[in-house]
């Protein structure tokens, strides 16, 4: 059969047996489980046995790339990676951008399944039909930037997923970078690759992607690209990148740190840090950065990042004095393959514990100071698993919680992953709430909705966004009926549809960032999908397929023992957050209602209700499983 958009091929790699083979996909599967994320869930459910040790050869990595990737569809370049993650013990999908997925599709594959463990370090080389497990002994020990540069030099214009020393040393939270830029696999994909002696995955393709209805597709493209071109804010997005999405300088001002706030400003970024704007393949809203430090101790340092927010967020640490130090530290973290979000949270938390006397010099093996050198030392001992304390930190938050009860009670984690979106500062939108219910734990992407920072506006504007996301009319009424009227929207119910919308985008391969997401709606995504693949599915089919994937992911995690008890709001959220002279309380999105434990539980009850899951244990009911045709996965 001829496939369009899809390649119809799955590349299977058994590292233990050094065996590589290719499987054909079935059309009926591709209609039930759409593309990257959807098919990843199906393949993962078939391959992963419950209670597998994430760092054992029995764990698998399933890479998936959606049907729109590899075409010119605006913003379609995402790679999705499913595995069982060591930090949380949960089965989840991670997403990353840049050129790997695009190249994989061009090489002729929708998915790669990696199982087993290689005897010696290898990298997986995919050059169209030529597949090799190549010797990586010379790359082992190199950081991600060195590894990627070497592989780029050898196989020019390829996409590279690489781990650093943290992944090699099985640091639980180690992630990978795609093209030394885009984070991929928060929660431990780097460690999983390290446990398999897999240093990198390289893809380069020259086959091209054919379209089922090329004329219709090109018309859709031209119309869509004109909308993007004419977007009044486009120039500003291209100029500022992700800095436009989160006012880090305001966060620093709230902390009383005006001097540092200036270095997180637009003016400072443009003059002192920005070197070049880069884009993922097919993206009309380029927002990735090449940064350059232009003076001082780190003069000449070049850093690639998928979001300028990540290095600048490190400025919130009292130990860092200026943006150059923040970029330098961020660069070190990225090279090792550590997670900058986790390191930022961890350093702040441990510093507070040390100040309180909850952690002592004897506990940690060195004297803690709020300075650059201590932060750097902390990164080194985690990445290299040095000493007793370095090993504890490298095993992640669950191990750290064992140090003492105060630490266990005060850490801001959900399912073992540190909170990314702090609702006491940002208020409770779907991004904040979704961290509680995501099977993966506190995460950065799946809860996108009109409650993105600074988005939304009036309730009437919300309605437009809800319709765009494909929320059914009756459900929209429920979303506008929160537990307390003044809250305006029901974040619990809305989160269900944010997850479904995210799943549609991720399955097709589309970027979920607000500045791309805003140009897409369920109807339009369906039109693109049909024109590209030739599959005649309706918007309802696509929405149902997304729901099916999310439920299957939940079923997999139910088998791992996860239930409502794991969807727990951090206790600290119900206490004021001290930020400079401010005491910030846990409030709803519009800021008029304080979220009590009772309201939070009501939001959770209603989230499960909207999903058709049991309120008692927070898992899919038999009726829901049957309705979605998932019985065979029980």
């Amino acid at each position, binding site marked *: 059969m001829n496939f369009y958009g899809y390649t119809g091929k799955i590349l299977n790699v058994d590292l233990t047996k050094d065996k590589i083979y290719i499987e054909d996909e079935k059309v009926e599967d591709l209609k039930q489980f759409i593309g990257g994320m959807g098919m990843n869930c199906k393949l993962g459910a078939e391959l992963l046995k419950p209670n597998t040790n994430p760092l054992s050869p029995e764990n698998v990595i399933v890479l998936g790339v959606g049907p729109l990737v*590899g*075409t*010119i569809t605006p913003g379609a370049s995402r790679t999705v990676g499913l595995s069982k993650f060591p930090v949380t013990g949960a089965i989840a999908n991670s997403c990353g951008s*840049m*050129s790997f997925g*695009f190249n994989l599709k*061009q090489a002729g594959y929708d998915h790669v399944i990696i199982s087993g463990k290689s005897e010696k370090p290898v990298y997986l080389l995919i050059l169209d039909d030529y597949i090799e497990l190549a010797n990586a002994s010379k790359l082992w020990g190199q950081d991600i930037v060195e590894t990627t540069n070497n592989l780029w030099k050898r196989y*020019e*214009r390829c996409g590279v997923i690489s781990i650093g020393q943290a992944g090699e040393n099985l640091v639980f939270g180690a992630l990978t970078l795609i*093209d030394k*830029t885009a984070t991929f696999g928060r929660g431990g994909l780097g460690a999983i690759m390290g446990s398999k002696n897999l240093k990198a995955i390289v893809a380069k*393709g*020259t*086959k*091209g*992607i*054919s*379209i089922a209805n*090329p004329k219709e597709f*090109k018309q859709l493209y031209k119309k869509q*690209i004109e909308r*993007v*071109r004419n977007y009044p804010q486009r120039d500003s997005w*291209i100029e500022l990148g992700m800095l436009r999405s989160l006012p880090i300088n305001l966060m620093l001002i709230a902390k009383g740190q005006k001097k540092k706030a200036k270095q997180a400003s637009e003016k400072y970024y443009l003059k002192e840090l920005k*070197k*070049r*704007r*880069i*884009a*993922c*393949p*097919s*993206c*009309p809203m*380029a927002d990735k950065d*090449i940064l350059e430090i232009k003076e001082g101790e780190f003069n000449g340092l*070049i850093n*690639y990042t998928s979001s300028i927010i990540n290095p600048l967020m490190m400025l919130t640490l009292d130990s860092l004095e200026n943006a150059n130090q923040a970029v330098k530290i961020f660069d070190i973290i990225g090279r090792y393959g550590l997670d900058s979000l986790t390191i930022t949270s961890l350093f702040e938390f441990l510093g507070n514990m040390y100040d309180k006397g909850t952690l002592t010099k004897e506990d940690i093996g060195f004297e803690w100071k709020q300075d650059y050198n201590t932060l750097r030392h902390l990164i080194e001992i985690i990445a290299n698993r040095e000493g007793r304390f370095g090993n504890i930190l490298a095993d992640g938050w669950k191990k750290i919680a064992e140090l003492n009860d105060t630490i266990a009670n005060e850490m801001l984690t959900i399912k073992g992953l540190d909170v990314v979106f702090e609702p006491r500062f940002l208020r409770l939108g779907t991004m904040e709430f979704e961290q509680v219910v995501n099977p993966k734990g506190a995460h950065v992407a799946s809860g996108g909705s009109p409650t993105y920072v600074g988005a939304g506006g009036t309730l009437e504007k919300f309605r437009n966004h809800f319709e765009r996301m494909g929320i059914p009319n009756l459900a929209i009424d429920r979303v506008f009926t929160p537990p307390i009227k003044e809250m305006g929207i029901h974040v619990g119910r809305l989160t269900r549809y944010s997850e479904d919308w995210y799943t549609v985008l991720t399955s097709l391969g589309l970027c979920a960032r607000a500045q791309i997401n805003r140009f897409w709606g369920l109807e339009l995504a369906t039109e693109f999908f049909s024109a590209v693949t030739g599959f005649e599915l309706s918007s309802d089919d696509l929405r149902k397929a997304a729901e099916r994937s999310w439920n299957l992911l939940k079923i997999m995690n139910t088998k791992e023992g996860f239930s409502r008890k794991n969807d727990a709001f951090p206790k600290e959220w119900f206490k004021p957050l001290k930020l400079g002279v401010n005491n910030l309380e846990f409030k709803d999105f519009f800021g008029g209602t304080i979220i009590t434990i009772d309201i939070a539980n009501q939001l959770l009850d209603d989230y499960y209700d909207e999903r058709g899951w049991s309120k008692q244990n927070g898992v899919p009911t038999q009726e829901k499983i049957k309705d979605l045709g998932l019985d065979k996965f029980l």
Partner: protein
Amino acid sequence: MAKSKKKIMIHEEKCTGCRICQLMCSSIYKQRYSPAEAFIQINDAYEITPKISFLDDCILCGQCAKYCLYGALELKEVEE
């Protein structure tokens, strides 16, 4: 009167490596989305300075420049 001819001006510093130019070119001349087969080639797309070049088969139709969203390509009429 001086004859004019089409020329595609390249501003490499504005290129983001998005490959839209290559995708557009290959879709017109190869009927598939295939940067490797495009008449415009981008090397070192994510290096500090990308390198943009045109193959001999390029007929200067200018579609790559028309769809370049970052100002890296510009179709101009120049006097011969």
